[in-house]
């Protein structure tokens, strides 16, 4: 249902951005040429008729042609998406594993030195403006030292800066959630029971407390993953990364309607799948949800 709402909204909003004819044809193009261009792409029909055509095509899984690239929009989108997914997966993997380990250790001794360092690191991470970190990173590592390439995806070296910049904010946020929910979990009654049983402290932290603390962690990690799937617009543009965020900005500025619609629909679909996965995760982690 959300998908349908999104579909309608995106279709009409993108039509509002203006007439693509002016963008694609030279300024001195004749009126006939313009009319022909409009007819070819169906821009001369009333909006509602255009929408009808669009829906009809959709039901045949035809997402329309990208005017700019002169290829089916779905192909263009499916070319870009794997890059974004790879980037998101790699980043989230690093984020979640490091946040869980560091956050759990920080929560084991709240107020200790390690906890303080972790807190400052997480707050700094969550506060960092990614676009700024990215250009300062380019300035330092690419321009001044010449260690890393500035853009593209040619080699593993190309991935270091985008991943590092994307890493910061989710890491900061998830680290805080891990720490807080681990502190709550470690203060709960079943931890006392485990201590009374003589269970090792490491087992208590990583077996008893962590699994209970995972629910809020999963929620926030899911939100952040969704954010990355949205296309890391800023990072992708700065580092010239061929992902969906970069594609979408181009598509909008060039009024490539079919491409914008397809990209957003695909994103929404992925987000929907992602949320389904998170719900499944809840059920796996907590038997009370499974039986509820």
């Amino acid at each position, binding site marked *: 249902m959300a998908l349908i709402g999104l579909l309608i909204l995106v279709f009409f909003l993108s039509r509002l951005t203006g007439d693509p004819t002016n963008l694609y044809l030279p300024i001195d193009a004749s009126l006939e040429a313009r009319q022909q261009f409009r007819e070819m792409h169906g821009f001369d029909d009333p909006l509602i008729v255009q929408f009808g055509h669009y829906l009809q095509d959709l039901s045949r899984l035809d997402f329309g042609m990208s005017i700019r690239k002169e290829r089916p929009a779905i192909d263009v989108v499916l070319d870009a998406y794997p890059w974004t997914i790879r980037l998101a997966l790699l980043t989230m993997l690093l984020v979640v594993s490091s946040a869980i380990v560091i956050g759990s250790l920080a929560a084991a001794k709240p107020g200790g030195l390690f906890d303080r360092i972790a807190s400052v690191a997480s707050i700094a991470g969550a506060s960092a403006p990614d676009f700024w970190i990215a250009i300062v990173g380019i300035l330092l590592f690419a321009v001044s030292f010449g260690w890393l390439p500035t853009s593209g995806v040619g080699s593993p070296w190309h991935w270091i800066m985008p991943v590092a910049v994307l890493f910061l904010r989710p890491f900061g946020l998830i680290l805080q959630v891990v720490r807080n929910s681990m502190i709550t979990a470690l203060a709960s009654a079943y931890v006392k029971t485990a*201590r009374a049983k*003589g*269970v090792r402290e490491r087992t208590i932290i990583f077996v008893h407390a962590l699994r209970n603390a995972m629910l809020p962690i999963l929620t926030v990690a899911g939100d952040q993953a969704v954010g990355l799937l949205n296309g890391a617009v800023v990072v992708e543009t700065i580092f010239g990364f061929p992902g969906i965020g970069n594609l979408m900005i181009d598509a909008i500025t060039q009024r490539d309607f079919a491409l914008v619609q397809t990209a957003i629909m695909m994103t929404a679909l992925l987000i929907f799948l992602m949320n389904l996965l998170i719900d499944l995760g809840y059920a796996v982690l907590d038997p009370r949800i499974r*039986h509820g």
Partner: protein
Amino acid sequence: MTDSTAASGEHLLEVRNLSVDFHTTHGDVHAVRNVSFHLDRGETLAILGESGSGKSVSASAIMNLIDCPPGNILGGEVLYGGRDLLRMPVDERRDLQGRKIAMIFQDTLAHLNPVYSIGWQIGEALRAHGVSGKAVRERTLELLGRVDIPDPSRRADDYPHQFSGGQRQRVMIAMALALRPEILIADEPTTALDVTVQAQILKLLEELRTETGMGLLLITHDLGVVAEVAERVAVMQAGEIVETGPIREIFNRPKHAYTQRLMGTIPGRGALVEDAQGEDRAQPLFEVRGLAKHYPITKGMFRRDTGEVVKAVDGVDFVLMPGEVLGIVGESGSGKSTLARTLLKLETPSGGTAHYRGEDIVTLERDTLFAYRRKVQAVFQDPYSSLNPRMNVFELIAEAWRIHRNVVPREEWRQRVDDLLDKVGMRPDHARRYPHQFSGGQRQRIAIARALALEPEVIICDEAVSALDVSIQAQVIKLLADLRDRLGLSYIFIAHDLPVIHDIADRVMVMKDGKVVETGTVRQIFEAPAHSYTQALLKASPVPEIAEVA
């Protein structure tokens, strides 16, 4: 009986001069001060105390369960096998926990890990101390069988939330006894349970103690529980042990003033109210016929209606006369609280009729409901959540007059709040304070003052004293009885056990599974209960009666 071992100086467990502080928002609290006691093989020592007396902190110190900070163990020794646990290396101490000294707790739902099966959790006690392989599963099933969990091999894979409170406590006991410890510390093991279940758990603990010869350290606030199982008692008050001795000494010849006062507050020992006379002539306040409240059972993610219902209240009849106190007794799930909520119009009944002074309360309209609200007030169970934490006492009480504008003119509010506070035994200067600045008993007094603000005819007390310490319980019941005499109030007094009702009710109604099983005058119920459930309830309610000669 314990003198021979005591003389040899070799106790199973000995606590000497233990002192523990806690840092709180209100400064350091001396939770435990210079506490000394000992426990011998095969005996049951009860540490008796009200909330905040430091009894649980003492137990936590033995088990290394105090978080430092905010806790701080200032000094003392806990001797086991000639060694001081407090100064033992962490790993050695961990090795003793669960193997030699084990513990069970009060709130079993919170104390069992919700995301692991109970079989796994019992097995962990074994694995933590080197048992592995098939032996773990076998011993787990054996333990579950021993604590009378039916069908152990299937139930072992279930999760804590799939068990009842009594069963969960059995699981806890199985877990604690996995490695046949020498000492079992039981921290309020039966407090949250129904009286009939409580009796079963106490019996099980008693059996297991004789069977294994372990020493049982029982922490409780309940004099009845102490009378039931303990051999010796240490009475704690404000962090100190004020008196220790064999149970008969403590119950029959208490020496310390606090112990004496405590013994005097045991509910169910006062004189019974005589059967009221001439009530038939008056018009009843409440007249309830066949009242029912059913909840539909829903299933799955989409709350699909299954067509089945839970009959929380299932055809209840009663009348309440002016000036009368009707006690309603029932265990959890008996429907007594749903009945109260229905009478208070917080729930809509599914069937039956309820009349107040001849007016049908089921069909009250906006205006008539408003008038009804003025006449019938309530005092709820939990004094910590029944007062809005953001309002001070004056606002809490005066809110009634903001809603019902014609009761008290605004310029008299201050005076009336002072009067009400005085009536419930509090001072006028309490009016400016906030709920968190009061103890549980004081909060319940505030709640009573709030109920009185509208000058009601009936107050429905839903477990109004259940959450309070016994000595406070006695005070609040006395206050309610005084108010009834002075203001001519009627009460519907709801409780989960009989002794509390004993001293205040005129008539008693016993409920089970949504139905009334027996109604009678308080004398009939206590002296000649007709229904077998009432008899069981009476028998299970631990009214401490310690015979002079055992």
